Structures are given as C-alpha cells and as structure tokens.
C-alpha cells in the first residue's frame, strides 16, 4: 500500500468517526500512548487558536508537524475542526519565524546572545521594578501565567502585571463577580445540546466559535427545534441561521435587557419562587459607585424598571417593541430552556459590566438557570483567557485562584503558598492595560512612570485602542524600553527595543483553560526553530538574573530561588539554564504549585497527570472516594456541583451577600461616550473574521487562510456608499477624531451593517483600524470599547 493510500485511509477513518461522534464520545483511554501511522506519531493538544478549546491530534514525522486531525475523543469538538484549526499545524512554519534575540541599534535590530538579552531585561527591571510593566496574554499557558504572576507579585513586589484578556473579557469577569461573587460561567457547552432557545448578545459564533455553532446547527439538521435569536448591530453569518434578528443601535443591548426585565416584572411572568429563594437586588450607589453596588428591594427594582416600556426601549435601541415582547414571552416561559451567549459585543463596551449583569439578571429573574440548556454563558476569544488570566490571576488586581491584592487575608494566603516573606505582596492595585500603556507613552515629567514593558505572546502594536496615543508615542520618548517575546515579526516587534524569539504551541509543554472551565494539557512535540525558547523559561531566566544582580525579592522565605526546583533525588535543577530546562517537567511543577491556590474559590483542579490522560476537565474537579477525579458540568446546582449542600437545589455559595443569593442588578440605560454627529456621522464597529485569528500574526502566514481573506476591508451599506459616491472595492479614507486609514469598501459583503454604520476587521497589520478606535473603557472592568465610535468616510482626493 502506498503511503498516500494510508493517509487517505486515515482521512476517511477520521471523517467517518466524526460523523458518528455525536454519540460516540466517551472516556478517553486510560493510557494515552502516542498513536503511530506510517511513521507519523499522533498526540493530543488543544487548538492554538480560539477559546472554544477544540482538541486536535497532532501528527509528527521526523521532528516536524505534518498532519492535523480533529480529536474524536474530545467532547468539545467531537472530531471536527474549523478552517483555522485545520491549518493550525502550518502556524509553526512561516518562513520568517523569529529565531534569535535581536537588540535595536539605531533603526536596525541586530542579533545578540540569549545571555546578553536576559541580562538586559533583568537590568531594566532591576533599576526600578515599580516602573516595569509585564504584559502577557490569554494565549500564555497556565504555567507561563503563574510564573509571570509569581515573578511580579511575589518577587518584585509590584502589581503591574496585565494580560491582553483585559481587552476581550474583563467585563465578563466583573459581570460574574458582581452577580455570583465568583468568576466564570456556571454552565458549559452541554447547554448548547439542550437549549430550546439560543440568544446571541452581540455575538457571531458562526465565524468566531464555529465548532460550538455547529453543535446547534447539527441539532436542527436532525430535526430538533431550536430557536436562534441574534441581537446585534450588523448582520453576520450567524444571522443567516437565526429565526429572529434584533438589530439594535450601539448600547441598545442595555435597553433591550431592561425592557425584557420590565415586562417580566410588570406581567408577573418572572419566576417568583426562584427569585425569593435565590436572588437579591442591587443597583449602583449614586455617589462613588462600586462593583458590588448597594442593596435595593424588589419594589425599588420594579420602580426603576418602570420607564423601560417596550415603546421606550424601541426609541432607545431601535428594536421594535414587538420584538422586545417576543423576547419577554420566551423568558417568561419556563417550559423552554434558554441559553444566552455573548463575547466581545457585550464585553468591549463602556457599560460592559452593566450589560453583563443585566443578562445574568434576566436569567435569574426568569429562573432560566441551573437546568441543562438554561444558562447565561460568556465565551472567550483566546485559548486560555479563562485558564491563564482569570483563574491564575494575571491582572493588576488579582492573585491566583480568585484572590485579590487589596484583601490582606488573600495576600497573606498567597505569601504562605508561595513561601515568601510576609508583606512581599503589595496591596495597591497596579496599572490596568490602558493605564499601563498610557503611562508608557507619556514622558516621565508628565506622569509617564512606566518606562519598561515586557510583552509576551500578544501584539499591542496592533490591538491597543487609539494606537497613536496609546502605543506609538513611546518610540519618540527618551528612556522608554519595549521588550517583546514573540514568534513572528509584528507591529509590536517592529517597535521593540529588544525582541526575544519564542517557542510556539507544540514546540513546548503547555496547559490551557477554555471558555467552559475546561483545563487542557499537552506535551512538547517538536523543537522550536533556531534559538527560540519557551516564554516560561524566559521569565525564570530573568528572575534568576535578577537574583544574581542582588534582587532580594527573587528569594523565598528560606533564602532559595523563587523558582527553586529539585529533581527526584532532591538536587536543585538549574532550570534557568536552557540546557537544563527540560530536565524536569517545569510545567508540571508550576501546575502543582498553582493547584494549591485553586481550592479557595472552589475552582479545584486535579493533579497534572489527570490532564495528561483526559481531553480536559471542567473545574471544580474533585477527588472521589474511589480515587478517581470528577469534573463539574453545572456549577451551583445540586447533584452536579460538589460544593452545593444537599437539599439546596441551587446554591450560590460565593454570594457577595453571604446568604447564598445571586444579585440581580439594575443599571440604567446610558448612551455611548462618542456618538455620530455632523462632523463624524457614522458608527465605526471593529471585530474579527472566520479565517483569521485576532491580529493575524499566525493566520496571515498560512497561505490558504490568507488567500481566503487576503486583507481587511470596510463593510458599508449600499445607501451610504451611494450617498458618498463610493464604488464597491474603491479605496476610501476612514477617519475618526484619533486617526485615519485608507481601506477598500465592501458593499453587501460578508457582514451587512445597517445604514449609518461601517465595520472594519482588525486582523490586517497593514490596515491598522485601531489607530481610529476609542480608548474609553468600562469604569469597573477597565475594558475598552472597540465596537462603537464616530467616524466619517471620504473619497481619496475629496476635502
């Protein structure tokens, strides 16, 4: 048999397994040995791209990834992959991989040794750690995030650690914290298999989470009735599959949620028993509002909702009153199971916390909570925004496992677990992302007290809002130093003073945590190119160099190195030396250290080796009397969540009011901070596309994906184009108060914005839409709003 016939046989076997995988997903084998076919060894890994967290089988031959297979044993994707996952192996093999450390000398980047590079980073930090910011990512692995947190918080004694997930899901975090007192969804992807109604709140899963979307579309193909409702500001591929499309004005989601709550209360169709047993009501204080707000009673809640009649909501949101009534009728029907999904539309919002809490509030008020298919669920865009950023706690106010730096008991607990001296962890919140970059882009004399930023695994040169002010100014400033660890040249590396080449995905060990609380592990399968090295090693090597420079924070209570690691014989392993880094499994050591942090907020994870066997496990994962480990599908639900007491049914055991109740918030409608006017008459919305992942630094290097979507564009309504005299494909100038760009127009394109709105995706580094976007952010989550600002479009050559 020819090798090619073997490969075709494997392809057909995979496809055949996948068509029947709906019912065939079972427990993975207890001992997952790498499978071999015709010299190709297969091992599991989560997909490198989105937060869905599909599993792939990665085929390696002679030290190179040569094939990718959807993992039929994985519950998340049941063997299927989207067009990005299908090409994930090619992401490793762009011809311009960064392969050696590069230092800026004048206008050039010149190669230097790793020893020099690590020394430069350490010295920049050592001269004043309080002026150093570490900016990591929702693509950093769990051990990488944990090491970064330990370096900054337990070592340097500062809190200027942030992650790019601030830009994509911080409002979801504040929404969960305000409502339940603990972060992350109670439900999981199983809800998609059980719901009768699925509502997208500013979400386009057909492009952004296609494998999840396929679960629902597949149910329909099998004859099941599922009502899909799209609430958005532009028609997308998801809209095509929906029975109802509610086209709202920007910020209309606030009004819609208030309108539905108004009708549930006014018509008495809310779930009285559920509310009386499990809910309390809150609103923001008039002065100095806090995330937790203040208690109000049900009557006050009812009174505040009174103005939000369907007609008033129609006036605010542009959504017909009849559609508001339709939504309220669905929520009022307890025979139905309703799942809400949201992502950037609700999160990248200057009232992101408000709209998140309002969506939770609808589910609580109507009792659509706690049954399979009844769930308010936020999705994430990055593969480990949940696992690394939210759970490990790599933000400027957080500590691992749900602790916060402002709480003395949490600090003491973390100091104990990290074995560092009392008082090492500072109680003042560090700078959040926008503030960190604002200060980096100001001279010291004007308050620019951040002078060194180390960026790992992300691309703020393309993704920070209002680029000209919040990223590009620093280049012209004295004594600002940008360090960037990455795998390819990007807009960020081009601005860098020092570039560190990183290992990517299966070139290193890793652990991710996806959108449904599922922790997923993989092993290194191939070597990184040239001198590229693991980000986690880079962090540890810098920590050790700081120790050599005399930074006492790099020692624990016993005087040992902060990342002290021993082999089985109790001898120290110098993991700061690259040649010794893989002598032990550093990921496993850090993961086990992190594990001790996770029980505090009932986010328990199992031992590392359990994840080696499984295709991920959803926390809390709790040991059973027989020694096995059980994951949790639905939190706060008796019989599912091990922390719910017998007889409680539903128990919100992290309630902010310490009475097992979730908080139903009232937030008033508020308009966006910048709205179209005579000068800038259009709304500008930004977002993603199916083929490219975020800033496109990987997917734009994959030829089939780039061919499928070669460049960014500006979607425009035909009527606006006619009024401006613009033809399809014509390059125009799009301007806001912050910047401008030239970009071709696409009329009747993939997405269909309404008249008065234009949409530009951000994946294309040659067309930087974030030079135009707004840096305004939600007051609680500090997440900026990329979804709406005022813009104008003019023809080239026109005044």
């Amino acid at each position, binding site marked *: 048999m020819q090798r090619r016939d073997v*490969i075709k046989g494997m392809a057909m076997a995979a*496809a055949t397994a996948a068509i029947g995988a709906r019912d065939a997903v079972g427990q993975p084998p207890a001992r997952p040995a790498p499978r071999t076919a015709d010299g190709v060894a297969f091992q599991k890994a989560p997909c490198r791209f989105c937060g869905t967290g599909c599993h792939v089988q990665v085929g390696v031959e002679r030290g190179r990834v040569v*094939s990718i297979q959807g993992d039929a044993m994985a519950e998340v994707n049941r063997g299927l992959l989207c067009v990005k996952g299908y090409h994930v192996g090619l992401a490793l093999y762009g011809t311009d991989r960064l392969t050696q450390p590069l230092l800026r000398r004048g206008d050039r980047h010149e190669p230097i040794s790793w020893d020099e590079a690590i020394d430069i980073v350490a010295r920049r930090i050592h001269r004043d750690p309080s002026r150093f910011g570490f900016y990591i990512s929702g693509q950093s692995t769990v051990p990488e995030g944990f090491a970064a947190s330990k370096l900054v918080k337990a070592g340097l004694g500062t809190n200027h650690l942030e992650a790019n997930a601030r830009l994509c899901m911080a409002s979801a975090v504040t929404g969960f914290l305000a409502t339940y007192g603990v972060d992350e969804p109670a439900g999981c992807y199983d809800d998609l298999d059980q719901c009768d109604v699925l509502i997208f709140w500013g979400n386009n899963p057909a492009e952004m989470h296609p494998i999840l979307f396929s679960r629902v579309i597949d149910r329909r193909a099998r004859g099941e009735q599922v009502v899909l409702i799209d609430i958005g500001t532009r028609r997308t591929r998801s809209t095509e599959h929906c029975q109802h499309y509610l086209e709202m004005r920007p910020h209309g989601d606030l009004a819609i949620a208030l309108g539905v709550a108004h009708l549930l209360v006014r018509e008495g169709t809310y779930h009285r028993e559920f509310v009386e047993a499990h809910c309390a009501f809150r609103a923001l204080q008039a002065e100095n509002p806090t995330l937790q707000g203040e208690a109000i009673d049900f009557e006050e809640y009812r009174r505040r909702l009174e103005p939000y009649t369907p007609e008033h909501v129609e006036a605010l949101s542009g959504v017909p009153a009849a559609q508001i009534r339709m939504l309220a009728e669905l929520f009022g029907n307890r025979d139905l199971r309703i799942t809400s999904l949201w992502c950037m539309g609700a999160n990248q919002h200057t009232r992101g916390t408000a709209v998140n809490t309002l969506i939770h509030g609808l589910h609580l008020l109507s009792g659509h909570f706690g049954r399979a298919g009844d769930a308010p669920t936020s999705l994430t865009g990055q593969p480990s925004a949940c696992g690394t950023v939210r759970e490990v706690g790599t933000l400027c106010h957080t500590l691992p496992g749900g602790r916060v730096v402002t709480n003395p008991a949490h600090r003491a607990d973390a100091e104990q677990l990290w074995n560092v001296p009392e008082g090492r962890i500072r109680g003042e919140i560090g700078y959040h992302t926008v503030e960190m970059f604002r200060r980096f882009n100001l001279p010291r004399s004007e308050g620019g007290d951040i002078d060194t930023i180390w960026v790992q695994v992300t691309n703020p040169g393309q993704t920070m809002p209002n680029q000209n002010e919040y990223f590009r100014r620093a280049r012209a400033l004295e004594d600002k130093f940008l360090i960037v660890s990455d795998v390819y040249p990007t807009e960020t590396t081009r601005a860098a003073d020092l570039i560190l080449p990183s290992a990517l995905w299966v070139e290193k060990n890793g652990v991710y945590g996806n959108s449904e609380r599922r922790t997923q592990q993989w092993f290194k399968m191939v070597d990184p190119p040239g001198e590229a090295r693991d980000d986690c090693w880079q962090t540890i090597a810098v920590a050790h160099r700081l120790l050599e420079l005399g930074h006492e924070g790099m020692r624990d209570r016993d005087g040992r190195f902060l990342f002290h690691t021993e082999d089985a014989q109790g001898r120290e392993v110098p993991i700061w030396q690259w040649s010794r880094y893989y002598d032990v499994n550093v990921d496993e050591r850090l993961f086990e250290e992190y594990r001790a942090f996770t029980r505090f907020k009932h986010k328990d994870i199992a031992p590392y080796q359990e994840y080696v066997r499984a295709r991920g496990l959803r926390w809390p994962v709790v040991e059973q009397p027989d020694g096995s480990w059980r994951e949790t599908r639905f939190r706060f639900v008796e019989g599912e969540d091990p922390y719910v007491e017998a007889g409680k049914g539903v128990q919100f055991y992290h309630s902010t009011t310490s009475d097992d109740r979730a908080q139903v918030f009232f937030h008033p409608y508020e308009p966006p901070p910048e709205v179209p006017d005579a000068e800038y008459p259009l709304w500008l919305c930004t977002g993603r596309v199916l083929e490219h992942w975020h800033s496109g630094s990987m997917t734009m290097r994959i030829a089939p994906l780039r061919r499928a979507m070669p460049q960014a564009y500006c979607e425009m309504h035909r009527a606006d184009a006619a009024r401006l005299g613009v033809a399809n494909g014509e390059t125009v100038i799009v301007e806001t108060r912050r910047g401008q760009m030239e970009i071709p127009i696409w009329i009747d394109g993939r997405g269909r914005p309404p008249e008065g709105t234009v949409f530009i995706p951000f994946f294309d580094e040659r067309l930087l839409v974030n030079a135009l976007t707004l840096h305004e952010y939600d007051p609680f989550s500090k997440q900026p709003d990329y979804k709406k600002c005022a813009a104008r479009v003019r023809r080239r050559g026109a005044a």
Partner: protein
Amino acid sequence: MPVTGLVAHLRGDPSGWPETIARLGADARVTVGPREGGRVALVTETTAAAEDAALFAALEATEGVSQLFVVFHDFSDVPEIEGTVPRRLRGRPCSDET
C-alpha cells in the same frame, strides 16, 4: 499534495440529501464516504494547497450543504508554505491574491 478529511452537514429535507451527496461526489477529487443522519464523510485529494483551499470553498458553497468541517489534514508534502505577510495591497477586498 494535500489530503483532507471532511464532514459536510447537509441542510433541508432529508429527501434532498442524496442529490446533495451526488453533487459533492461529482468532482473526481472527492471521495464520498458514509452518511450518518445529516452528516456525510468526504476525503479530498488535491495537488496544491491553493487547490485544496479552492476545493474546500467550492464544496462549502455546494447547494444543500449547510456547513463543512475539516477533521483531518495532511500537509507533509506541501512545498508552498508562504511565510511573510505580503506588504502589497490590492484595491478590491476579499478576492484571491493570485
């Protein structure tokens, strides 16, 4: 020479599925495998990555197909991995670069 395993989700009335499957199999580069409910297994064999992507797009656009997913992709002998992001921009969006 990419080899790709695919699952096509069929839309609409099951009575129309045989016709859709026949349309999918009409291309000599496509081998049609078993069907389970509204899902059918396919394998495609092409000579170049660009052809593979074009065939994927054509199959996805086939009348009666609601979604197309990849379950297996072998690119062990694909020579044309292009590394860098080209600086050249075309005027018209979303057309093939070549």
